[in-house]
C-alpha cells in the first residue's frame, strides 16, 4: 500500500497550497484530490492534514469559512490568501530547484574519458 509513503518534509504544505490554487476546497476534497491526482500513490494521513491546515491558517496563507457543498452538506472550505499565492510561487521554485538537484544527483553525467 502506498498509504505509508513518506512525504518529504514541507511537501504537504506545497501540495495543499497547490490544490487550493484553482478553487477553495474542503479537507476531504484536498485528500481526495491528492490521492487521485497522484494516481493513488500519495495518500495524506488525515491527522497530518488538519495539523497542516491549522499551521497554514496560523501563518495566514489560507483562510477558512463554512459553506454548503453541491450536495447540500455544511463543510469548512479553505481558500488561498494573496500571501498564500505568493508563498505557493516561492514553494514551487524551491521544489523545482530541489527536483533538479535530485535529478542531477541521481543521474550523474559520466565523466569524460
Amino acid at each position, binding site marked *: 500500500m502506498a498509504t505509508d509513503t513518506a512525504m518529504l518534509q514541507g511537501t504537504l504544505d506545497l501540495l495543499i497550497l497547490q490544490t487550493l490554487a484553482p478553487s477553495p476546497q*474542503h*479537507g*476531504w476534497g484536498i485528500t*481526495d484530490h491528492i490521492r487521485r491526482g497522484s494516481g493513488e500513490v500519495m495518500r495524506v494521513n488525515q491527522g497530518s492534514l488538519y495539523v497542516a491546515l491549522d499551521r497554514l491558517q496560523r*501563518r495566514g496563507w489560507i483562510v477558512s469559512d463554512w459553506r454548503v457543498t453541491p450536495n447540500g452538506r455544511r*463543510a469548512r472550505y479553505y481558500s488561498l490568501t494573496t500571501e498564500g499565492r505568493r508563498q505557493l510561487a516561492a514553494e514551487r521554485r524551491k521544489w523545482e530547484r530541489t527536483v533538479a538537484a535530485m535529478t542531477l544527483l541521481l543521474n550523474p553525467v559520466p565523466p569524460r574519458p
Partner: protein
Amino acid sequence: MSWLHGLRYAARSLLRFGRFAQERREEAEFHREMEADRLRREGLPDAAARLAADAAFGWPPATERDLRWYLETFTSDLRLAVRTLRRSPLHVTTVVMSAAGAVAIATMVASILGALFVRPLPFRDSERLVVAWQTDSLRPQGFNVSLPNFRDWAARTTTFAAMAAWSQRTGAIADDRADARPAHLVEVTGDFFRVLGAQPMLGRALDVDDEKRDDLVVVLSHRLWHAMFGGDSTVPGRRILVNGNATTVIGVMPPDVRYPPTGDLWISWPHDRQQYLPRNAITQQVVARLADGMSFEQALAELDAVARSLAAEHPVRSQNQATGALVRPLREELFGRERPLLVLLGAGIAFVLLVACLNLACAGLARALDRVPDLDVRTALGAPRWRLLQSAGAEALVLAVTSSTLALLAAPWMTAFVWRQSAFASMQSAHPRVGVGGGMLAVLLSSGIMAATVLWPAWHVSRARRRLVGLTRQRVVGTRSRASSILVGVQVAMATLLLVGAGLAARSTLRLLAEPRGFDASRVLTVGLRMPHLPPARAARLSAALLDSVRAIPGVTAVGAVNHLPLTADAGRSPRAASAIVAHTAAGPVTDGEVGAGFHAVDGEYFTAMRIPVQRGRAFTASDDADAPRAAVISESMARRFWANEDALGRTFEVFGADSRLASQQLVVVGVVGDVRTTSLEQESLPDYYVSYAQGIGNVWHRYLVIRTAGDPSRLVPAVRQAIRAADPQVAMEFATMEHRLARSLVRWLLAGATLGTVAVIGLVVVLLGVYGVVAYTVTARRREIGLRIALGATPAGVQASVLRSVARLVVPGVAAGVAGALALGNVLQQLVFELSPRDPVVLTVATLAIGVAALAAAFVPARRATRIDPNEVLRA
C-alpha cells in the same frame, strides 16, 4: 505580518474554544462521512466502509481517545469493585468500620491536641502573653505578688508592653429578680483586658479609668450572662449585687474569653480598697504582654532584677532568701499540666491505628491471594499488570471514600463528646473543632489505610505471581504465610508494649486509690457556703448557728466546717500557696525548708466528721474562743518536721502570709492529728496546721460544711438545704458528697487508666484475631502435608505440637521485641507511673504471660482441627 496572523488565530481559538472544538468535530464528522461514501462507492459494505474511514482518519485524536478509554475502564473498574465488595459484606463491614473508627479516633485526638497546643489562644498575639510569679528559696515554683509590689513591677520594667494583676475570690451574685448564686469573682486591675487584647461582645471592657471610680463596675463572662440573664443584650447598664455590693454591668465578653478559666465575672478594684493592701498581702496573680521586639529571656532577667531590688528596699521579717521572679508563657500555664497525659493518649491511639492497619493488611492479603486464580485468568487473557493493580485501586478508592465519609461524620461528634466528658472541659478557653485540617487528615489517613490494606497486598501478590509463574499455588500460600507471619509478629510486639503501658497505669491507679488519705470520705456530705451579703460578725454568727441546726437533723452524726476540702483544688488556690512558718523549739527558732505549711481553718467537729484521728493532745473545744490564746492543731508530719526530738504540745509557732489576722501572733500547739493528703494523692503529706474559725481566723464569708451521716449522705440534701434556708434564705450553697469531689480530682488518673486499658484490650483482641487467622490459614494450606504425616503414623499430639510450635515461632520474637521496646521506652512510660518503676517486673511478667496464653488459646482451635484431618480425604483430593 505572519506573526500577527498567528496571534489573531491563537486568540480566536482561545476565546472561542468551545465553538472551535465543536467546529473541529463537525469537520471531522464530515470528512469521515465523505470517506465512507467513497469507500462504499468502491464496493465496500457499509459497516466496513465506516470502520475503515474512522481508522484512516485516526479519530478521535490520540490523547482524547486515551483519556476516554481510561475513564471508561476506570468506571467499569469502579462498578466491578462495588459488585465484588457487595459479595463479601462481612469483609467490607470489618474493613470500613475499623478504618473509619481508627481514623475518627485519630482525627479526634488530633483536633483536641491541636486546640490545646497548636491553635492560638483566643487572645490577640497570644504567644506574647506571659504570666509572672514571685519566687524565693522556699517557693522556687512561684507564688503570688502583693499589689504594691505589682505596681512597682509595672512601673520599673520596660520589657512588657502592659501588665495586669488579678485575684480570684469566691462570692455570690444576685439581682433584684434572682436568688443569690455562687460565683467566682475575678478582681482585676484596669489594664487586664488591654493586656489580653480581648474585645467585649456587648458594652465595653474595663479600662484604666475604672480604677479611679468610687463605685464598682463588672464585666460578665459569656457563661454567666447566659445563665443569669438568658443572653439579654440590654444587660450593660444593669445594676447587680456582687457580695452584697451594688455594681454596674458595663459589658459582656465573648464565649472564647475565659481567663482565668474558672472565672464568672471580672470586677474592678474599689478605689479606696487599693490603699489598704500592704506589701505582705501576697494575693495577686500577674499576666503581662511582652513589648515588641523583647524576648522572653530579656523580660525574665529584667523582672527578676526588679524583684530583687524591691526585696532589698522593703525587707520583711522572713527567713526566705533570694527573692526573684519567674515568667512563664500563658499557654504553658494553662495547659502544661495536661500535656504528658495527652501525648500518651495520642501515642496509644497511634498504636491502635497501626495495629488496626496491620490487621487490615493481613485480611487484604488473604483476600488478594484468594483471587490468584481470577488474576491468572485475566493475565492469560492479556491484562497487563498495571491493569490488575488499577482494579485493586478502584476497590481501595471505594473503601477509602466510604470509610473517610463515615469518619468525617463521626469525628466532630466524638470530639465534642470526649471534650465534654473529660477533665479538659473545665479549661474552656480552648474549643476543639474538627476543621479543614482535621478533615484533610481523615481523608489522608483513610487513603493511606486503604492503600496499605488493598493496594499493597495486590502489588505483593502480583509480584509474587510473576516470580512464581508456573509454580503451584502452594508456593504462593507460602509467601502469604511469610508476609503475614511478619505482620503478626509486629502486632504481638505492639500489643505487648500496650499491655505493659496499661498495666503500669492500672497498677499506679490502684496504688493511688489505696494510698492512705488520712480521712474517710465515705458517708460525708459537703456543702459549699457563701454568705458575702452579711457583715463579718453576722456571717461568723450564722456559720456557728448552722453547725448546731444541721447537727440536729436526724441521721447526722457529726458536723464541722473547713476553708478548703482536702484533695479538691478550689479555684486554683492552694492552702499552701502563701505561708511560711517559724517554729519555736527547744533549740531556738526553726523555719521550714523546701515547702510552706498548709493553712486550714476549721470549726465544729471537723476532725470527727472527717475521721481524722487525734493522736495526742486535743481537738478544738468551746473554750478556744476569741478571747483565749490562739490555739493550733498540727499534723504529725509538722510535728516531726519541727519538733522531732521533743513533744510539740504546748510549743508555739508564727505564721507569715497566710491570714492577716495571724500576723505577729504566737500560735500554741494544743493537739496533733494524723496526716492528711491535702493537695494531691501523688504527693507525700506535707506539714499542715489547723486553726479555729471560732477564734476569728479565716475567711468568714466562705466555707464548707462537712457532714458525717449514718446512711446515704445524698439523702440528707433536702433537709440540710431547708435548715440553711431557714437560718438565712440568701446564703448561696452547693452540695456534693465527698466521694464525688474526690472522683473529680482523680479524673486524670482514671482517664489515663481507662483509656489505656480500653486501648490495650482492643489491641489484644486484634492480635488474637490476627494469630487465629494466620494459624487457621496455615493449617488449611498444610492439609495435604498433615494428612500425609498422619497417614505415616504421626500422633494427634505430635500434630498439635507442631502447629503450636509454629505459633511459638511467631509469638516469642514478637513478645521479646515488645518487652525490649517497653524497657527502652522507660522514660516515656515514666509519665504513667506512681511509685512504680516503669520497668516493673510484675507488670512485664503479667503482660508477657497474658500475650503468650492468649496467643496459644487463639492457636488452639485450629491446632485441634489439624489433628482431625482425615488422611484418606485429603490425599485422594
